[in-house]
């Protein structure tokens, strides 16, 4: 082994490359960029502006922050549903004026003023909502027009009533309290804004309206087609935005009491910048209160710092505009490319060197020498089946198999011409076994471990296990439960091929050749599941040895079969039985003579074996080449073999032409015949085994003498 290869081996063993993709796949990664920006902004401002973080300075910032937070949360609601509200600036000015007029000129009590102003803001929002939600006008242009309209109205009002509104002869302590008081050092506006933020957060994430909102923003057409009141939901967001803007304006009015012409001018840009900078997407679907708050904090800090720096006029517009453009550009590109980046960054190949591949060529006198014995196999359900990955036969010789449509299908003995859907589970069955009570236990890809009761009801046994301590990805959830066998005491050991890929991407796991899989034990006595073996390379077939203390399992990408002791004196030990298969093993099942059958789904190739020793090559491939051009392992062999517990190969059966059974993923011996299943096949094969025990059945052999006979007579 060269120095370089040794380095590769250590480097890929100890550097956890896969974590990058797993972190990128997390939902919270959206917030990471704004938070970094915030930290950066704080660091920069606190160094270049002396006294930036003094109490007095912070108190002003906090008041502005509270006011803006209201508006930005409203904007977030609108953005999330796929709209935009530019009228917030003018609406803010209008509500500011209304609040001041009601308090100063009319001397109304706050109990009237507050609801009145909120109502006014809500009415403005309702106007937008009616136009945009119900009449389907373009949000941007419409709110731009209401922006001008309201601004003109405010100008007219302040021209005519400005003097009365600007001051009051009598002090109104409650009004001043709203603007100037603090609760334990925190301004009232920020306290209220926080309360509202929590409420809206609950509304958006925990309540029906929020879910509808996400649906409308995520895919308006689908939301419409499933019957959501899209128009009403969109309209409601504008009303909420209006009310929240009014709330912000109330605090502003009570704080400054200003009716100047510049109140709220350009506020829509500030708020939009805050909302988008926080990570809320233009165009809908992505948005949260947390994002709004992060964005608002950044924008308030930046604008405040610009004022403190005392730069020339225009600076603040320039900087805000640039930040806004940059934020939108990042947002647009991020939303568009996130999945693409994720797909590429997620696949994280590692170094893996397989032992030399045994010969299979005809005439090589290898134990795996190719033959054509399976060409005589007959077909069951030809053209009617779709992906019978695993097959099993019951006591009455009926044949069960899975299908890609999420069914377990039963063929009736003796001729297997008739079939029925035994039970519909919903996910593709990948492994099957009968338990002591002759109930079918099934591993369902993407769903977990299920049991089918005698009256054909699917019952979930397990879909989660213990989460490992330092996993970034949530590995408590089962993604690809693959094959199972049941220990005599009733415990079910089943393999989960990979924790990093869903069932439709299972082949991508081959590019990583990392031990992503595990074996889980389900204990029916307390219903718990626990991972017993992890970091396996696509553990697939699993079968009990019959000594009540160990089982065999196959690792597909590892091309090996191992034995694990779950009880007895060697408990916890693993021993490799066959280290160097010429292909990728799939299911293992018992044979009538005490040995084991193992299916081979595909043959190794020198190229892919070499590629597995070159992780950087595979990484470049994933980055630069389209996914359908990637190099995958061969999945094209019709081969199975029989082996002893000592690792000796006893028999090999091939379908050389690959016509009848292009890939074999499972086989069951039953009364002298061998039944063959394949993940991509449209049939089940039947092969007459010469010299096999014609009375032997898997169930009787395994459960026979332990079984409760009374159960059987009940049937």
């Amino acid at each position: 082994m060269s120095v370089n290869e040794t380095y590769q081996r250590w480097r890929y063993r100890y550097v956890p490359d896969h974590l990058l993709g797993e972190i990128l796949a997390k939902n919270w990664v959206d917030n990471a960029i704004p938070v970094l920006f915030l930290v950066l902004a704080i660091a920069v401002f606190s160094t270049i502006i002396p006294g930036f973080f003094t109490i007095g300075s912070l108190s002003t910032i906090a008041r502005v922050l509270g006011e803006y937070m209201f508006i930005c949360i409203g904007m977030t609601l609108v953005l999330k549903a796929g709209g935009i509200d530019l009228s917030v600036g003018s609406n803010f000015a209008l509500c500011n004026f209304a609040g001041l007029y009601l308090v100063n000129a009319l001397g109304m009590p706050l109990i009237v003023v507050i609801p009145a102003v909120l109502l006014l803001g809500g009415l403005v929002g309702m106007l937008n909502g009616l136009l945009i939600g119900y009449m389907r006008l373009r949000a941007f242009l419409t709110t731009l027009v209401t922006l001008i309209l309201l601004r003109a109205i405010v100008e007219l009002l302040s021209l005519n009533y400005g003097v009365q509104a600007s001051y009051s002869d009598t002090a109104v302590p409650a009004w001043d309290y709203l603007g100037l008081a603090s609760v334990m050092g925190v301004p009232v506006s920020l306290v209220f804004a926080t309360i509202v933020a929590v409420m809206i957060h609950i509304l958006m994430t925990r309540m029906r309206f929020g879910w509808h909102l996400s649906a409308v923003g995520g895919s308006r057409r689908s939301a419409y087609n499933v019957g959501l009141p899209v128009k009403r939901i969109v309209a409601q967001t504008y009303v909420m935005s209006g009310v929240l803007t009014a709330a912000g304006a109330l605090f502003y009015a009570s704080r400054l009491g200003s009716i100047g012409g510049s109140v709220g001018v350009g506020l829509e840009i500030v708020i939009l910048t805050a909302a988008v900078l926080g990570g809320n997407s233009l165009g809908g679907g992505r948005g949260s209160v947390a994002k709004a708050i992060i964005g608002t904090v950044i924008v308030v800090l930046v604008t405040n710092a610009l004022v403190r720096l005392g730069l020339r006029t225009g600076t603040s517009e320039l900087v805000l505009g640039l930040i806004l453009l940059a934020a939108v550009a990042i947002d647009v590109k991020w939303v568009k490319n996130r999945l693409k980046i994720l797909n590429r960054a997620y696949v994280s190949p590692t170094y893996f060197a397989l032992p030399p591949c045994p010969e299979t060529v005809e005439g090589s006198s290898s134990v795996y020498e190719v033959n054509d014995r399976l060409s005589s196999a007959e077909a069951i359900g030809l053209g009617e089946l779709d992906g019978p990955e695993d097959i099993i036969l019951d006591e009455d010789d009926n044949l069960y198999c899975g299908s890609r449509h999420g069914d377990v299908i039963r063929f009736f003995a003796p001729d297997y011409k008739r079939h029925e859907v035994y039970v519909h589970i919903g996910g593709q069955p990948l492994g099957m076994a009968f338990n002591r009570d002759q109930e079918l236990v099934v591993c369902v890809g993407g769903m977990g471990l299920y049991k089918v009761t005698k009256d054909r009801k699917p019952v979930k046994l397990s879909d989660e296990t213990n989460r490992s301590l330092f996993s970034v990805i949530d590995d408590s959830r089962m993604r690809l439960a693959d094959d199972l066998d049941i220990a005599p005491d009733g415990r079910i050991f089943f393999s989960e091929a990979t924790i990093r890929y869903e069932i439709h991407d299972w082949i991508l796991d081959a590019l990583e050749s990392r031990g992503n899989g595990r074996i889980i034990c389900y204990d029916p006595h307390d219903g718990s599941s626990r991972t017993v073996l992890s970091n396996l390379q696509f553990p697939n077939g699993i079968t009990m040895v019959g000594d009540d203390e160990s089982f065999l399992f196959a690792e597909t990408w590892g091309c090996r079969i191992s034995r694990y002791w779950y009880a007895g004196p060697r408990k916890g030990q693993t021993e490799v039985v066959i280290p160097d298969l010429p292909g990728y093993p799939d299911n293992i099942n018992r044979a009538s003579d005490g040995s084991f059958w193992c299916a081979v789904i595909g043959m190794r190739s020198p190229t892919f074996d070499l590629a597995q020793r070159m992780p950087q090559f595979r990484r470049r491939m994933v980055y630069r080449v389209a996914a359908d051009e990637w190099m995958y392992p061969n999945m094209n062999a019709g081969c199975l073999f029989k082996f002893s517990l000592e690792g000796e190969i006893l028999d090999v059966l091939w379908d050389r032409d690959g016509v009848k059974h292009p890939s074999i993923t499972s086989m069951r011996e039953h009364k002298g015949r061998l039944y063959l299943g394949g993940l991509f096949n449209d049939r089940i094969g039947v092969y007459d085994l010469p010299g096999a025990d014609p009375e032997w059945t898997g169930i009787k052999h395994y459960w026979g003498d332990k079984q409760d006979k009374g159960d059987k007579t009940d049937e």
Partner: protein
Amino acid sequence: MTAHQKTRLSLNQEQMVLAISGALFVIFSLTLDSFFQVSNLVSLLQNVSMLGILAIGMAGVVIGRGIDLTMVAVMVFSTGWSFVLFTGGMQIELALLLGLLLALAIGTVTGILVAYVEIPDIFATLAMATVITGLGRFALVPSDNIFISGDVGWLASLGTGSVAALPMPVVLFLVVACAAFVGLRLTRYGAFVYAIGDNPMASRNSGIPIRPIKVLMYSSSAFIAFCAGLIMAMTVSSVNTKLASSTMIYDIILVVVIGGIGLAGGKGSVRNVLSGTLLIGLLLNGMTIMNISYSAQNIIKSLILLLAIIVDSVLNPRDEQTSQQGDI
């Protein structure tokens, strides 16, 4: 609705605008004393021709399913900067060339943001308008109002000259209109713009280079904005940068939408801009004569714009099944 009726309806739309213009003309002539006078009508044409030139630039973008909210900002700050340089002692030609280059650069940046970065048109241009305004106030134009002192030579005739009793700005408006007509109707570029406005994905699939064309669209609107700014500066002998934060840009959209150029793109022509300009010009002139305050004028204009958008959305309805996700 049959195809035949639809054609008649769209014809009606343009005729309607002309009919309303005619009616307004008659009403104003009868009710407003100072309206039907040669001096007022000439000044009406002169005032509205600025709006018209800008609207033609806007139309070139709107037809390609875009919108350019930067036009006014580009107009005042590119010409403003030119005259700041001129006042500072630079040759007028060189100063104007630099201003023009600035305008084109801004237009190109906007176009790149829209076409390559894929920021929605309306949003990119809104943010760009803010950036240009900020940049202009910060670095290019120190005061709100630049008075043009000194001899600008033949350029002065752009604002104050006249051809056959028509003021120069009106003549230039017609020239720009003709040029735009040729550009949109008779060149490959124009055909591409219509195709992109009609169906961007289909144009892209059929091999039209939609990104470069979009950049060109925004560059040409910036070019037209610069021309309009130059003419305006020559007419009033000053550049008022406060216009950048006024509602003038909405007047331009108003002209385009009222004229009957659908915001969904692919429809309309220079003729629509002419009729829209006529109507808005009449309206603005009439309201000024009636001494309606600036704010009240804004209210009336925004209500009309709202109405125009509503009519636009009724005539070109958006369907839940076909509307684009994220189309704001």
